């Protein structure tokens, strides 16, 4: 299997699946009350995903909107229970730990959410947002907390004199840093960053990306970096994982993936990446039909859009297999 697996892996994702029975949200309940014929549906958000992440690595997670990236990230961070499968932290199953060990392991994996405004409590001061968890979990003594928060704010480039402000008094980029500071405060080893720069304009995005890279050096952090911006992923990641409709379709070291994509979906993605130097281009429509996670296609999920699909692709699910050193792809063309 993966030759890297011998090296210390920090997180092992083992055959994780997550299904949602789509219960009705507010809009749905209102619509139902108005007589709408709405039923619950099962969404196959993540389907048997396995992945080993090495200590100190940055793994980019890319894929179509709705393909299950956030869901996988949340399962890894312990926000969601998986429907099937296990997540191991440094070789230990998190669920099997108890008491202090379980808590310690949970703290070591932190998640930075996509929208900083909705994940920060608007009625809490920044010093409490950052300082609450480390005191509660005994990471620092409560008498040292002011200094500790100051230190962390400096580390992420926030002026400590803003510690008594509320989240709405900050700009988008600064709020993102508050989210990062809160995650760092419990001294994690592993960060799941979900679209952490998507809402930022490029100049602030650059500030936050530089911060991530600096923290990686300083604190030896490992990242699972979820993004649909391939430019950002290429810039930051050591390895890239491509998902399509709940399944991993390709894993490769970043430079190899961008130089020589194997899976037809990856090829389609890279062909469409907008580049600053490409002017007045002719955009092309998606070929074939776009599938839905409520009623996923048989066989290879990509077959309705794949230019190279054969009869086998419609029937048999291609397995993710090693196609070269450190490279994996799930496509029948490889066998």
């Amino acid at each position, binding site marked *: 299997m993966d030759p890297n697996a011998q090296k210390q892996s920090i997180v092992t994702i083992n055959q994780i699946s997550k299904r949602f029975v*789509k219960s*009705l*949200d507010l*809009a*749905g309940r*209102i*619509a139902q009350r*108005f007589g*709408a014929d*709405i039923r619950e*549906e099962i969404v196959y958000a993540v389907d048997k995903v396995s992945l080993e992440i090495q200590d100190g690595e940055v793994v980019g997670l*890319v*894929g*179509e*909107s*709705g393909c299950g990236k956030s869901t996988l990230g949340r399962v890894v961070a312990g926000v969601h229970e998986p429907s099937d499968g296990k997540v191991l932290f440094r070789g230990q199953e998190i669920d099997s730990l108890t008491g202090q060990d379980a808590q310690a392991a949970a703290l070591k994996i932190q998640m930075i959410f996509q929208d900083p405004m909705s994940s920060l409590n608007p009625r809490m001061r920044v010093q409490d947002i950052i300082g609450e968890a480390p005191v509660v979990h005994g990471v620092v003594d409560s008498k040292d907390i002011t200094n500790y928060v100051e230190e962390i704010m400096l580390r992420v480039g926030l002026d400590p004199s803003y510690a008594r402000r509320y989240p709405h008094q900050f*700009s*988008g980029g*600064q709020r993102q840093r508050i989210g990062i500071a809160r995650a760092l405060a419990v001294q994690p080893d592993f960060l799941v960053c979900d679209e952490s720069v998507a809402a*930022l*304009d*490029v*100049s*602030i995005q*650059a500030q936050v*990306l*530089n911060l991530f*890279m*600096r923290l990686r050096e300083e604190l030896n952090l490992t990242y699972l970096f979820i993004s*649909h911006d*391939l*430019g*950002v992923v*290429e*810039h*930051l990641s050591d390895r890239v994982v491509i998902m399509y409709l709940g399944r991993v379709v390709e894993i490769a070291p*970043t*430079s190899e993936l*961008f130089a020589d994509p194997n899976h037809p979906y990856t090829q*389609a*993605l890279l062909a*469409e*990446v*907008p*580049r*600053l*130097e*490409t*002017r*007045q*281009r*002719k*955009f*092309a*429509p*998606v070929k074939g*039909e*776009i*599938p*839905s996670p409520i009623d996923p296609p048989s066989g290879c999920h990509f077959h309705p859009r794949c230019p190279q699909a054969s009869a086998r692709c419609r029937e048999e699910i291609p397995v993710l297999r090693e196609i070269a050193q450190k490279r994996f792809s799930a496509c029948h063309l490889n066998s």
Partner: protein
Amino acid sequence: MSFSDSPTLEVKDLKTYFFTKGGIARAVDGVSFSVGRGKVLGLVGESGSGKTVTGFSILGLVDEPGRIVSGEILYRGENLVSASMGRMRELRGLNISMIFQDPMMTLNPVLRIDTQMIEAIQAHEKISKDDARQRARDVLGQVGIASPDERLRAYPHQFSGGMRQRVAIAIALLNKPDLIVADEPTTALDVTIQGQILYEVQKLCSQTGTALIWITHDLSVVAGLADDICVMYAGRIVEQGSVNSVLDNPRHPYTHGLISSVPSRNRRGVPLAQIPGMAPSLLKLPKGCSFGPRCPQVTADCGIIPNISMLDKGRQLRCHNPLDALVSPKLKD
């Protein structure tokens, strides 16, 4: 250009201010640009620089405490600033449409998608329900919604975020309007679906002559799509011109900084260039050039607001110390 040489839209010295408790926020402060038939204008700039408010002003959607205080918005020669509410309602959705940053501004959560789309068509056109449904179905397909027949019977909450965004785009395209203002319309979509939508939008521009204003912070999309580009900073356009001239040869230090911060292929892992500091609050703008405190080129002259200078080929600039015409940030590859 076909039947008329005058641009579809001409905005002249537009000022839209918000009269808040904390003071006057000059969200749009003397903005001028024009878009011709079938042309695409990219509107880029820092968060909070006034892009959305510019779009809202064109559609007549600016609300209290905001108001257009001066300037002209000429749509085929008709000044929309003085148009009645009734006239604006007539134009909106038929001649001019907007794709909002948040798709739920377009969609009604309690109505089925078909109801909303058919209504949007029939509001402006005498057409049978079956024909309207047929058109709605076709347009949903164009924006990459799988099995449009079934999806038409769905409610907005049954769609993922990216799908809702696509339905909102579909509604804006329904009546093949003359002018579309698209506000960050594809930020939540992967590039293959984004490509599908840009393909449809391009087709509309070239076949119907639709003029398009594309608001975004993604410079790479603007590079591939737009003919001209306006760069906004703190309520003003600091640089405008053709996409090629501005992106290859930015003269304003802010434009230069923006382009340099885009992650680049051949500098993987190397820290990205960043513009120091943060965008100023509109209520506490620095004196003179608003970019001054963050500008590497700043001099004493910058204490006075720079006027617009006209360069060749329609290029415009607001800067006392423009960068050398030959200095350009290294483009990727």
